[in-house]
């Protein structure tokens, strides 16, 4: 915030460059890989780094728009249900006779519409917070999926469809390629376009942004639509990996995605964060899970480790920022969020 801006305007120093969250994540990523290699001989090979990301990249599509959502200061917990609904609709439509390419398009459309509905609800009823809107739609979308498919599974897709989730172009899995393209797209959108700047402005101070001419409503709708679209991608790749779908797929995805985004340094208060952080976080968590899984760490221990990782990483950064403002003495004015305070201290 104010603190940070001043630092950047000062002469560029090595220290300020490397003391950023994203570099810390790089260090953690390296540490994770070192740990994994020590633990298991099966870890360090080309397969791991190229093929294995297939297992977690389907979730990663959601991290990209979720970064935008959280920069806005909102949250979206309905993404898992959107994935389920669009996957179910696609499967049912295909099995009812729709040609597969059209079913794929239908899946993306349904997902986008779900996102659009979220956006419309949030902009038409501003009194409602994003939490309650997406909570309601989370339940509704998955509920509709149950109504459509009941207790059945639906699948039996054509053979070429499994290429999406399992296939590779040369040595690189298709999923990695598509994800890389989307990541670059989102990165450009966020950091190099005026849309991105407006997004940050809205996240920092929505009222000021509005009065500066930023169309808040359209931004929220665009971001919601993008979230829906990416959920559609996730649905495509997840369904391809499983070969079938049920109404209960992708349960719990929303918390995993949010964890990856906040680990990536995007503040839920809004207005802060870069796309690089969540990207690194995706791979950190993915590789950590895989590496520890190779030595058959029990699931409960894995839970603890991931939880500790999240907290320790944040603590490291906060240790740096904590600096001078330490005492709890009530008579001293302290501020750890803003920079200089007008009026000085009161004792």
């Amino acid at each position, binding site marked *: 915030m104010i603190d940070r801006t001043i630092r950047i305007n000062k002469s560029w120093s090595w220290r300020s460059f490397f003391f950023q969250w994203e570099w810390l994540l790089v260090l*953690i990523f390296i540490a994770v890989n070192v740990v994994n290699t020590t633990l298991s001989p099966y870890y360090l090979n080309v397969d791991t780094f190229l093929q294995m990301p297939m297992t977690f990249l389907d979730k990663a599509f959601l991290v990209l728009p979720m970064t935008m959502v959280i920069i806005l200061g909102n949250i979206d917990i309905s993404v898992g249900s959107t994935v389920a609904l669009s996957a179910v609709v696609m499967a049912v439509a295909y099995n009812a006779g729709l040609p597969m390419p059209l079913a794929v398009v239908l899946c993306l459309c349904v997902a986008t519409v779900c996102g659009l509905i979220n956006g419309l609800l949030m902009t038409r009823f501003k009194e409602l917070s994003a939490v309650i809107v997406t909570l309601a739609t989370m339940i509704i979308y998955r509920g509709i999926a149950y109504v459509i498919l009941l207790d059945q599974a639906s699948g039996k897709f054509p053979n070429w469809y499994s290429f999406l989730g399992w296939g590779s172009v040369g040595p690189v899995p298709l999923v990695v390629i598509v994800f890389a393209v989307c990541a670059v797209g989102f990165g450009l959108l966020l950091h190099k376009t005026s849309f991105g700047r407006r997004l940050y402005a809205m996240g920092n101070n929505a009222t000021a942004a509005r009065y500066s001419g930023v169309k808040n409503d359209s931004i929220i709708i665009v971001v919601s639509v993008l979230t829906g679209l990416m959920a559609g991608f996730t649905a495509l790749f997840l369904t391809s990996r499983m070969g079938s779908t049920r109404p209960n797929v992708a349960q719990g995805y929303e918390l995993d995605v949010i964890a990856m985004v906040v680990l990536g340094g995007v503040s839920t208060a809004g207005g802060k964060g870069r796309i690089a952080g969540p990207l690194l976080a995706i791979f950190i968590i993915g590789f950590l899970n895989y590496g520890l*899984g*190779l030595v*058959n760490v029990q699931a409960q221990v894995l*839970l603890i480790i991931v939880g500790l990782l999240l907290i320790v990483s944040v603590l*490291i950064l906060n240790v740096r920022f904590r600096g001078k403002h330490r005492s709890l003495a009530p008579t001293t004015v302290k501020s750890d969020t803003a920079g200089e305070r007008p009026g000085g201290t009161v004792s």
Partner: protein
Amino acid sequence: MRKVFIKVALIVAIMAVVLPVALFATGTSEKGGTAAGAKYAIVFKNTGNPYGDKQMGGFKAGIEEQGFQAILQAPAQPTAEAQIQIIESLISQKVASICIVGNDFDALQPVLLKAKQAGIKVFSLDSAVNPASRLTHVNQADSAKIGSTLVEAAYDMTGGAGDIAILSATSQASNQNLWIDYMKKDLADPKYKYLNLVKIAYGDDLRDKSVSEAEALLQSYPNLKCIIAPTTVGIAAAGKVLTDKGLVGKVFLTGLGLPSEMATYIENGVCPYMFLWNPIDVGYLGAFTATALVKGTITGAVGDKFHAGRLGEYTITKAADGGTEILLGPPFKFDKTNIADWKTVY
């Protein structure tokens, strides 16, 4: 400089925490590279499930009895996606065989086919996966027999006439749905024509939801005579509700339940008797199935025979879903006479 030092120190701290914990959790045997013997893996539905732990324990005992190494794995969430990740990891570890207790009938097919292509022998246990994904299936009891045994129990408890309801787990659970289908088929028989199935409720294997559904059944159907709950969480929840409402002797309960969970309700009479099988034996049988498949003694085809340690000889038979299966035996009945012995076992 101090801050750099703090950062480095904290990163070392992360590693210092992760390494020992991971080592502690797995034992140092994994560090040696290719282990002395082949590795046999079992993947259960979720962690923290004592039934699953007993099953995996039986599997481990069977594998180690034959001199090999067992890997026991279960995801934190009972989802297919989580099991896919575990199976991928097992493929990377080049295990000899994977015994899967499936969270989903179809969704594991692609990853299990990948395992097959890598030369790993894949078979399912307890909760089946589709025939294309597996070589064979170890079934604890004949599904049709489970259905008919439960219907017969309801008939017996209610005196032949009355409303009955089924309290199941999730609507997606394939083994539940299979048993329920067999129950419905049996109920069409003229012998049971005075037994009226009023509702199939889904408790999702969640304690609080199962309680709500059980309470709703009692509220909506005042003439309810018997609840059949073929799921361990559901039957225990229904037992609690019936006990709390003082309906002993008025509404009966039966189904499939853990002896430890149901001990109180069998002893107080709410549940005159119920059924299950010994999960330790199921796992043990799975262990011998795994080694038999790897050795080539059996291929998973109907008619193959193999020896399963202390359990004796087994023959592979045709399964209802189109694949093949190995049956452990008939379901085991728990009632007041034997519950005290079994409640501490599992």
